[in-house]
């Protein structure tokens, strides 16, 4: 992929008019999402200083990590096992000393969308909410054709534009690099949706996938039994969120959080483990021995929209 092509794709990420993004969102909303987005009142180029780390966020209170013994290292080992070792090491350090980074090797991304789906399942995302779309685009002309795939999680910026625009102080930067959202504090204004130069945030309108189906339990499985998996708990930010009317996260801005509840248990984010091309890597960028540190140092590593100074925690390799 040439630099021009990449910048074209990454440019598209920020444009509300972008065809592929809108199309994508439409798909995830079953056509309901369009038109409800609040008009932007905050410029994308607003000052991007992150607010001070949220005081008293008591992150250390979550159940402490209990290390477990991974199988012995062996040559030719799957990167998943190495990365699990990396994060076990990181979790032994105080939270301030680790910085979670993700690296996505675009040469290995096969555009299968397993990450998008796995993420939606793990986080019980309703229609319209998407944490990790994979943007895809054909380039070139016959017979010299290419196909670009670009997974786009939240960049967990070190200078996150979404933070200063929040009128409710419901979003902030954690010491380990993750940009968190407090659903209970979020007022649903969606300023952050507009502020994000990567369009990483979507809004939870409280829909369910089975909304348009008939309820005929006397004949078929029926809505109630079918819909249970949608309302089982998600564990974002080490809290149990069960979807019910009038309760968060319905009515909130939502985004990728690097699978916080998983990483704090020594597990990798869902998009990393499910990736069939092994294109997504995760670990502690502060640890020089971690796989992500090695990858970030590659000459062909880059970040999206480096020029606007958001300092993403997500790197790409092309």
């Amino acid at each position: 992929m040439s630099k021009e092509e990449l910048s074209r794709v990454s440019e598209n990420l920020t444009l509300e008019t972008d065809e592929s993004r809108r199309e994508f969102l439409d798909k995830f909303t079953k056509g309901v999402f369009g038109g409800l987005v609040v008009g932007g009142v905050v410029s994308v180029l607003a000052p991007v200083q992150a607010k001070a780390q949220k005081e008293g966020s008591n992150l250390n209170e979550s159940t402490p990590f209990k290390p477990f013994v991974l199988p012995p290292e062996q040559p030719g080992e799957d990167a998943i096992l190495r990365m699990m070792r990396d994060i076990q090491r990181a979790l032994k350090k105080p939270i301030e000393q680790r910085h979670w980074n993700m690296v996505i090797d675009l040469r290995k991304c096969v555009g299968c969308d397993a990450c998008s789906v796995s993420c939606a399942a793990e986080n019980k995302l309703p229609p319209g909410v998407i944490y990790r779309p994979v943007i895809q685009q054909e380039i070139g002309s016959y017979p010299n054709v290419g196909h670009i795939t670009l997974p786009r999680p939240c960049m967990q910026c070190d200078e996150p534009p979404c933070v200063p625009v929040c009128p409710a102080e419901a979003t902030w930067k954690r010491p380990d690099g993750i940009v968190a959202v407090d659903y209970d504090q979020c007022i649903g204004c969606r300023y952050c949706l507009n502020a994000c130069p990567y369009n990483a945030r979507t809004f939870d309108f409280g829909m369910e996938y089975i909304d348009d189906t008939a309820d005929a339990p006397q004949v078929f499985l029926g809505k109630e039994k079918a819909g249970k998996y949608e309302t089982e708990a998600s564990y974002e930010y080490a809290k149990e969120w069960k979807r019910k009317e009038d309760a968060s996260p319905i009515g909130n801005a939502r985004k990728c959080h690097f699978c916080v509840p998983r990483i704090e248990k020594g597990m990798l984010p869902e998009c990393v483990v499910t990736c069939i091309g092994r294109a997504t890597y995760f670990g502690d960028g502060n640890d020089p021995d971690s796989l992500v540190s090695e990858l970030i140092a590659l000459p062909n590593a880059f970040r999206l929209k480096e020029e606007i100074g958001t300092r993403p925690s997500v790197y790409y390799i092309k």
Partner: protein
Amino acid sequence: MKNETMENKPMSRRSFLKTSALLGGSAAGLGAVEKISSKGFGRGKIDYPLNDAENVIYSVCLQCHTDCPIKVKIEDGVAVKIDGNPYSIQNLNSPIPTSTDIQVGAKIDAGLCPKGQAGIQTMYDPYRVVKVLKRAGKRGEGKWKVIPFDKAITEVVEGGKLFADVPGEENRIVEGMRQVRALTDAKVAKDMAGDAMNVGKGKMSLADFKAKHAAHLDLLIDPDQPDLGPKNNQFLMLAGRMEHGRKEFAKRWHKGAYGSNNFMEHTTVCEQSHHIAYKQVTSQYVDGGKWKIVSEHMKPDFRNSRFVIYFGTGFVEANFGPPIMANLATNAIVDDGCKVVVVDPRFSKSAAKAWKWVPVRPNGDAALIYAMIRWMFENDKINKEFLVNANKAAAKKANEESWTSATHLVAYDKEGPAKKLRASDLGIGTSDQFVTTQGGQPVAVNTNDKLNAVVGDLFFSGELNGIKVKSELLMVKEYAMSKSMEEWAKEAGLRVKDIVEVVREYVKYGRQAAAEMYRGPVQHTNGYFNGMAVIYMNMLVGNIDYNGGLIKGGGHYHEDGSKGGPFNLKKDAFAGKTKSFGHKITREGSYYEHSSYFQKNGYPAKRPWFPHTGNVYQEAIPSMDDAYPYGVKILMTIMGTPLLSNPAAHMSMKTILDLKKTPLYIANDVAVGETSMFADYIFPDLAIWERWGTPHVTPVAVTKMSKVRQPTIEPLTDTATIFGEKQHVGFESMLLALAEKLNLPGYGDDGFGKGMPFKRIEDWYLKMATNIAAGDHHGDDLPDADARELAIFKKARRHMSADTFDFDRWSKACTDANGKNWFKKTVYLLNRGVRGEDFTNYTKNVENSDKILHKFGKMFNFYCEKVANTRHSYTGKKFSGISQYNHAFDYAGKEVVGSSAYPLKSITYKPITGGQARTQAVDYWLQAVMPENTLDINSQTALEMGFKNGDMAKVVSADNPEGMWDLGPSGKKPMVAKIRTVEGLRPGVLCASWSFGHWAYCSRDIVVDGKVIKGEKSRESGVCTNAAQTVDSGLKNSCLEDLIGGSAVFYDSFVGLVKA
């Protein structure tokens, strides 16, 4: 959150809502959210429960046939998340050892494709059929009623006026299963079987047969054609996707107990010709003149290949299959510099990672390969050192594992190449020895000889003992040289320059280059030969059994007990087991010349006979239509939808709607599907994650592994009491209920032998699992699950009722005939879902040897003697023994050509989100990724035809100028979808993906018990182009076919597009 913090906030949710309301902003989308939580945040103390083995049950996916081992995570009895199983080499590049603690295994998630992830939505489909539905209107009218399971079982067994309430059917008497099962005496069956088939072969006269079996002639379909078998054969069990475990369960019932010979699966709509090519090329000669089938497919060793050519397939979509292949391929490409070529008219996601995309003309594969072979011969790039080895001993001496028949001689007769020359033909050896030449002098070769090495001349042509002979490699060479590079390139639709570029690179990597195929090259009339040509590419570079070459895979532990497991289910000789006999409805496995039809009519046969293949799906219903070789009285379909999946499937609708041709149709399905909507009864099937199975592993896996599909939740279907046991309704329990009602042998209290009941689903599958746990030889067994593991095993199933899981009952099912209980070992297996060989066996081997760990070590044939001596059942002409390039011809010999109205070659593909007919329609997460398919054409083609991106168009063809699926009483569905203009498609080709264009699956309203149930429109999106595929002019009611491999032809039809 403290109150004071609240007050300090610049804005609360409530005040925002108020403000925005005042400003006139719409709060419609927010109306639901007025609660201000007083709960804190970031103080979560909730343990993440999905990392605990107590909340995990391992199973095996079946959203496609890759059958990835999965872990299903359960909360409140609901399957909430599916991930890849880390013990499995299909999901983790280096699987964790089977001995790894299950609490550690629970914390390691491994790769899984989006379909596997979305399985939850297939299982929890609001429209899932959970009760038995009986037709309450005309077939296909969409009117149903719910009836009790027991009543449905009684009705289908006993028959009668089953549809007296349907206008027009008041007096129609339906024959039930009991009546159709005419032959019930195992001894009579055994006595008649051989004689009946001998009548077909002309070895016994009909008069003699009738005299000998006078007392039982009434049991036969036709006493004048006893080779058609007993009336029992008129019960056809037609499975879509059915795999090991379930397949053997069904065959035991249908063949062994019921006594019908008509059980078949769907493989020919998938990629059967690729299997048949492998089966023939790798079949092994056994003394006495037989060829033994030993391998049905092999794969490149993607871990170590340096150069791979993918023919009509890739590593991202379909194939066998994505998680393992994608992982290995991307690692090889990026980390190890492996070069990939994708030969495909469509620029696939694999092509996106390729060094070169070769947009071959559909069916141009063999032409392309013969151009490359020609170049290899001309440039002296074939691996002669490998090819000269004529037998096992020679291979061994040359430090090879496998060898080929390159130097063996083929004898010609008047018609051309015939059988392989035998040493006895020259008086230099036995009739079990082949012949090669050394310096032109004939030498006898015992191909399996381990001691006496024979190498031969690669190229010999001459006359020996008055017999014209040629060496097999010379035949291939002469065929390759029969056209110039330019001529081959023209046939392939490619430039010579590109072909040479690929082959020049291919021969650079020695044994670490390989050629791979799946569906693309083989779903053609020339499919078998195209597949064979791909295999030649491997043989000519001698890559077999090398790291990075062509490998057979690690294999599996034998769940059928055939390798010494405690339960020998392969040779399950239960009392009363029937010998099923007679030609199958599809004539698969039968030579036409061995039939009474041939004795009567000679050539041409009305429909083709398929001695070398099986599971010829697309022939089943059209053969019922023609009642050839006989009619069917009961059709049962299971997890399959032939009326959607088969090319030209629309021609079969009228057969299913015809009450005389299809008197009783029973479907097993998880929904009212495209085919089951035409059924008389729909019995609910268990969803994949609720049931059992023991599917086999892909040859891509380099170490041995077996996997067990097991219930992960309490099944959602109704329960029934069968053999006194309450259990959930599904395909297997339906068969058990039918067995009870029909009093079939081999079931009930002593079904597996004295004191060993076969009354429940798991009575069968736990034995299979136990065989895996016990291993393939003494001392190969798994450890016992200890007390802690047993407790976790129970706790992980705490959401299941006794209808599904009962510890003691399950344990009893694992006690063998000698009274030994194996259950603790079985639990050890079920707690991990797979058992795998120690992966360090592989890593150690690859460091020390250039050969792969698990070796094939046998002969590869260039010339397939059995096929070469088989005749086309229309023309009576012999097939070729070596691979050939042929244009597309139908059964009657008419070439398939396009026209100005129908100029486009139609092809299909499977996106990774669409595994089977149902996958994409039901799974919302997959719909979200790909909500509809499109009619893809090259932008240049679009320009020429006057189409723009996004135009709506209808697919039409000479055989279906209207472009319609005619659904009988349910109206018509036009083949209309959006045009997508692309660059990544060969001009002149129309490509529409599979998995769309549904007309059932509750995409439309249906009526049950008099009430309208609204369908979900989104399920209907896109198009299925099967109704535009060519109808064979010699058959008139079905699609084009590969007459050797049996594949249904998906890529040889011409279609047109009209604005819609």
